[in-house]
């Protein structure tokens, strides 16, 4: 019984942690740019693919094993560096200030393009990079065995969340971003280069998506279609937590992660739609999510 509860909690926490990293990028981009980015899932998949490509190259060079983590970071960074100018500067910038739903549709179109780009570059075959997962060994908790790498993901998620929160709240550039979130027009009048802030925010969001992808790559088989589930699940997380809220993303990811883990162990048939029930249930009681402040109505 205790074992089962512990399993559910740990499984849930591991699942919640990668979900949180994806959702963190999504919610941050929405907070700053007011864009709900469906293509976020596509960037996640690119991160996974680039890791699956770079890690074998890394091993063939015969470097010390521990540096593989660095390779994964670099692959995520590379994806963000390539994708940000194309998406933000090239396409999304034309739509700022327009209807939210129209922008969602634009990002949906970009998502479709990214899906095929993955197929064109990496083909239809599945790629595997299981090596990094063996790096940290296994942990014994009572009668349960956990892979150390999986547990380290929880640490990574906490680190990403804390870092972003600290940068936003405790540094000058973070405060500038908060000012832009609050009112881009006034911040612009005060001398803030809004375009730069938008570009940087999008870069951070894309990097987080790619990071989640590259650190999940060792856990899964990297193949066509991995982005679809991510899109919907991370949407559910940010809707539950309230769009644009970092604490909301934490709670949302935990709710979905735990609910899913509980389902997998207790009621596997419900696994597919448990998160929609969470999302719908939350919206019924808190229509704007958990951490969304009240807004004045326009008369």
């Amino acid at each position, binding site marked *: 019984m205790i074992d089962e509860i512990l399993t559910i909690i740990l499984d849930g926490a591991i699942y919640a942690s990668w979900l949180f990293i994806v959702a963190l990028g999504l919610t941050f981009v929405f907070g700053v740019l007011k864009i709900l980015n469906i293509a976020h899932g596509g960037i996640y998949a690119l991160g996974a693919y680039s890791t699956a490509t770079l890690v074998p190259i890394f091993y063939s060079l015969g470097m010390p094993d521990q540096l593989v983590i660095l390779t994964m970071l670099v692959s995520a960074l590379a994806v963000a560096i390539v994708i940000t100018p194309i998406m933000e500067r090239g396409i999304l910038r034309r739509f700022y200030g327009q209807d939210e739903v129209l922008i969602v549709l634009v990002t949906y*179109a970009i998502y479709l393009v990214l899906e095929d780009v993955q197929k064109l570059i990496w083909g239809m075959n599945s790629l595997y990079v299981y090596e990094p997962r063996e790096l940290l060994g296994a942990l014994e908790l009572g009668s349960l065995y956990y892979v150390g790498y999986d547990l380290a993901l929880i640490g990574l998620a906490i680190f990403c969340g804390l870092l972003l929160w600290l940068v936003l709240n405790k540094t000058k550039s973070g405060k500038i971003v908060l000012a832009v979130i609050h009112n881009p027009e006034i911040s612009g009048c005060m001398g803030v280069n809004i375009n730069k802030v938008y570009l940087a925010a999008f870069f951070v969001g894309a990097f987080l998506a790619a990071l989640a992808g590259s650190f999940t790559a060792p856990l899964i088989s990297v193949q066509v279609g991995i982005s679809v589930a991510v899109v919907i699940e991370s949407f559910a997380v940010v809707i539950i937590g309230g769009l644009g809220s970092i604490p909301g993303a934490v709670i949302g990811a935990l709710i979905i992660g735990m609910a899913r883990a509980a389902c997998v162990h207790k009621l596997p048939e419900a696994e597919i739609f448990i998160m929609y029930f969470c999302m719908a249930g939350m919206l019924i009681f808190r229509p704007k999510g958990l951490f969304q402040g009240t807004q004045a109505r326009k008369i």
Partner: protein
Amino acid sequence: MPLKLLNNVIFQSIFLMSLLIVVGVFIPNWLVFVITKAIAYGLVGLGIITLMRGGLVSFGQGFVFGIGGYTAGLLGTQAGLTDAMLLLFISFLFTGFIGLIIAPLLARYRDIFFAMLSLACSMVLYGILIKIDAIGGSDGFVLPESTYFGISPSPEYADYILYVVSILMTGVVSILLRYYYNSTPGLIALAVRENELRVEYLGSSAFNVTVLNFTIAAGLGGMGGALNGIALGHIDPEFTYWTTSGEFVFISILAGYLSVPAVFLAALLLELVRSFSGRYFPDTWQLILGVFLILSIIFIPSGIGSFFKQFFDKFKNK
């Protein structure tokens, strides 16, 4: 709506419908099929347009599309009902009824929250459908050949007859819808889009109008789903998937909310792009579709309907 305008609409619709029916004889069979599918998608798009007039966009019309399709399919396989017109009509009523039940829940939400909650509805349905093995699970099932007034047409004419039936039924629906748009609740919807609070102050209920719009949109989506199922002869949970819903949103954004025929034109464009890229670039059709979406949103942001409106306004001024 003034009688003269209504007469005009009826006249134009009948002209357009007869033109399409005559043209249908001369065009190749695959194009007849593509147009029928475009009509099915256009019906769903028309539903979203109805919602858009009230300022809402549903990202989950796959929900009603799927319910309509499965209604038609289950009636065909389980109850032996194969009359296409009857199936379309029953799907319309039944899905509209389902819409009426869930509308009060959804009508409280606006903007992106409405879009996301409707998306959640469609994905819950998707999750349920792929789990029920009795109706084929993720493979779906095959629909029986449809009949018309008890007669089952020979295979070479079946596509054309379905095409004619769908044009007739869609024509009637479009005329009724045009009439609804110019009725009091239809016009209140436009006011809700502009400023909901003022509508409430003036004594009308934005909530009721939204519920009504959602119900109509659901019925139309159901009819579209049934037509799509009958035209394909097969139905599967993909009908309710969020990417399907995304295509409906695209159709309505491409069309804009100003014109009814523009919706079908947009749906036809999407179908043509999809069939051509599917045929000539089978591995990259999503890429082509995506680029087409982005370009059309960049170059015609307010929709094809705005061209129509400009054209007719010029015409009237002369």
